[in-house]
């Protein structure tokens, strides 16, 4: 642990007594936070923190309206992880870029909740609460898994989280200056600042019960469904039992007999696993790599060892797929055209609330912008194109004029989906994906967008093209997919699969 400088920094801040903006040098690859972020156990803390966040009325409403985490939790998890890693990057340029991207993204999220109260993802008080819950959940996770942090380490971690908030907000004034002052703030929020929101229930009961299979198991819905019936309630119980007592009481979350012991057992088990297993096994990116394999991902650290590990892992995954029963074994040939209903549920309704509205399309734009790591100008172009498409859709499909499109309205006029505004979206997507501006999408650009290599079923249309997409081909492919006429593995991976 080479964190002496960071500890000294936090002490200096505490000693000076003035609310100086925390030093962003606290973050980076040597920070405690970086260690947690790479530890697969931290996932437990992040989910727990999300429940606490969701109890905040503003955050709960924003999550319900805009987030794709119910319909696409795995994708969301990966994005969160990437984003956090970028913020903790050694290079401040990478950090600043990610922070401004996050801020632009959050600036687009605002609205009114069910009771008509406004919410805004840029609200400083709400953002402070997000960081507070992450901090408290990290401590709880450590405590439950049997490695309580000592005083100075907690102080340092707190300082790092404040630095994290300061990086996002410009200052950390909405979080108390010291750890001693933090606890009254946290307890006060629990007692007064939170509500029994709809979002809590969605996370605890719907998300865990319905979480779609990770990409690894996508071809095995039966295996996943069986595993989930057991694991879903267990996961919900583990998370619930780790929440503060007062919060559980307030949110009316039941206390299952044995849930406390189960939660401790799981946390303790994960702690023991982290200590006993080779470090590379319990890293977050290893776990994500197994669940959501992305070909050609070159992470610099220990590339050789990682490649060997990847190889073993992909062999294990291949073996697993070959040995597990396959529902398509009955001999169905080829992918059938997707039904309008499935297309609506899997692709269009990104937020999983059963109807199509602007947040769904914004989520698509967000996903693409995140993947391509777009700058502000390109990102704005993309959002604008999607906004135009939304206006076009609304005009064509919204029969009752309620500002959103239901499944029935979509099914009635699905054909008119491919209007000029959608073509514009395809063209803008081509422009921003063509990062070297040579008017074609080559293999590397393709991989950045779709996180997969060129595939026979796509490139196969013209094997002589040498693995390139021209503008025309790209637009055609996109339109065929978006109008639901033709399934495409690549676009499924981008927009449909979680």
């Amino acid at each position, binding site marked *: 642990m080479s964190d002496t400088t960071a500890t000294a920094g936090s002490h200096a801040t505490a000693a000076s007594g003035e609310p100086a903006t925390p030093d962003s040098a606290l973050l980076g690859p040597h920070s405690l936070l970086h260690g947690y972020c790479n530890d697969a156990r931290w996932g437990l803390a992040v989910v727990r923190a999300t429940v606490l966040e969701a109890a905040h009325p503003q955050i709960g409403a924003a999550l319900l309206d805009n987030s794709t985490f119910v319909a696409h939790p795995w994708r969301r998890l990966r994005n969160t992880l990437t984003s956090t890693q970028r913020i903790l990057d050694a290079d401040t340029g990478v950090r600043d870029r990610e922070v401004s991207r996050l801020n632009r993204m959050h600036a687009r999220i605002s609205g009114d909740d069910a009771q008509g109260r406004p919410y805004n993802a840029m609200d400083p008080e709400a953002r402070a609460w997000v960081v507070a819950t992450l901090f408290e959940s990290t401590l709880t996770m450590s405590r439950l898994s049997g490695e309580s942090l000592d005083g100075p380490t907690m102080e340092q971690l707190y300082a790092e989280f404040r630095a994290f908030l300061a990086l996002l907000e410009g200052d950390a004034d909405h979080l108390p200056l010291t750890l001693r002052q933090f606890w009254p703030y946290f307890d006060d929020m629990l007692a007064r600042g939170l509500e029994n929101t709809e979002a809590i229930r969605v996370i605890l009961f719907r998300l865990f019960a319905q979480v779609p299979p990770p990409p690894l198991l996508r071809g095995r819905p039966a295996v996943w469904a069986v595993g989930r019936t057991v694991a879903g309630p267990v996961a919900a119980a583990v998370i619930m039992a780790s929440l503060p007592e007062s919060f559980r009481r307030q949110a009316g979350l039941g206390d299952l007999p044995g849930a406390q012991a189960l939660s401790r057992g799981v946390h303790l088990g994960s702690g023991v696993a982290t200590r006993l297993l080779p470090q590379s096994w319990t890293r977050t990116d290893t776990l994500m790599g197994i669940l959501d394999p992305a070909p050609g991902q070159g992470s610099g650290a220990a590339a050789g060892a990682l490649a060997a590990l990847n190889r073993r892992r992909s062999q294990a995954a291949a073996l697993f*797929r070959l040995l597990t029963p396959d529902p398509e074994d009955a001999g169905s040939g*080829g992918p059938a055209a997707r039904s309008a209903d499935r297309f609506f549920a899997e692709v269009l309704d990104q937020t999983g609330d059963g109807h199509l509205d602007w947040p769904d399309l914004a989520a698509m734009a967000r996903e693409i912008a995140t993947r391509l790591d777009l700058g502000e100008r390109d990102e704005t172009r993309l959002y604008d194109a999607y906004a135009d498409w939304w206006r076009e859709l609304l005009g064509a499909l919204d029969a009752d004029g309620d500002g959103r499109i239901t499944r029935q309205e979509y099914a009635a006029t699905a054909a008119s989906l491919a209007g000029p505004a959608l073509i514009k979206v395809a063209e803008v997507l081509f422009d921003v994906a063509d990062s070297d501006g040579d008017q074609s999408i080559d293999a590397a650009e393709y991989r950045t967008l779709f996180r997969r290599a060129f595939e026979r079923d796509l490139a196969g249309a013209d094997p002589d093209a040498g693995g390139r997409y021209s503008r025309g081909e790209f637009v055609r492919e996109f339109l065929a997919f978006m109008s639901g006429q033709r399934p495409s593995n690549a676009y499924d991976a981008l927009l449909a699969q979680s």
Partner: protein
Amino acid sequence: MSSVPCHVACVMDGNGRWAAQRSLPRSAGHQAAEAAVIDVIEAAHAGGVQWLSLYAFSTENWRRPCDEVDHLMWLVRRTLRKHALALHARGIRCRFLGVGDPRIPPTLTRDITDLMELTRDNKRMTLTVAFDHGGRRDIVEAARSLIRDRVPAEDVTEANFAGHLPHPDTPDVDLVIRTSGEQRISNFMLWQVAYAEWVFPEVLWPDFRAAHFWECLTAYRQRRRRFGDVTVPATTDEG
């Protein structure tokens, strides 16, 4: 035992006739072929053959009735899944030659990829399944690949041409076994069979077993011996 051929290839012919003789649908013949495939793999593995190639489906086979093709695809997939672990456990590296047609169901393509991935580090034997394979197409592809790499015409040799064929580490075929008495090449691994010995047992593929395989190896050995008589001085010859 230097007399064991390094690379044996089988053209699995006669499934349809086998079924017709029994008044069964053609698909039953393909189904019965599975046992022969497994037997031959076992025999080759036990006999120390380093490379075994099986011609399962040619690019021309797509012209067959749709039902038969569908059934064949399903059968390949089932067989592959059924025996994947056994193949891996025996240290057999599995490869597929061809497999470029979009008509192949994606589920099968994925299983093929998985099987290749799973077994790619194995060293005991390499099993190449020519599936949706055409010998001429491979040669054309190699020519394309040369042109794409801008290799000047005078630099093209047999050796570097072979390097542009799919699976370039595959050695030349020593022995081709074509069952059911048919005596044709049928566009099979054209480049690699240039110097191969051919044997044409009368038995139909579904009836082909390890014993037949041994007979073919013996036939191969005898031919080699006679071939040796020409070059080796007569004094060392026993009879």
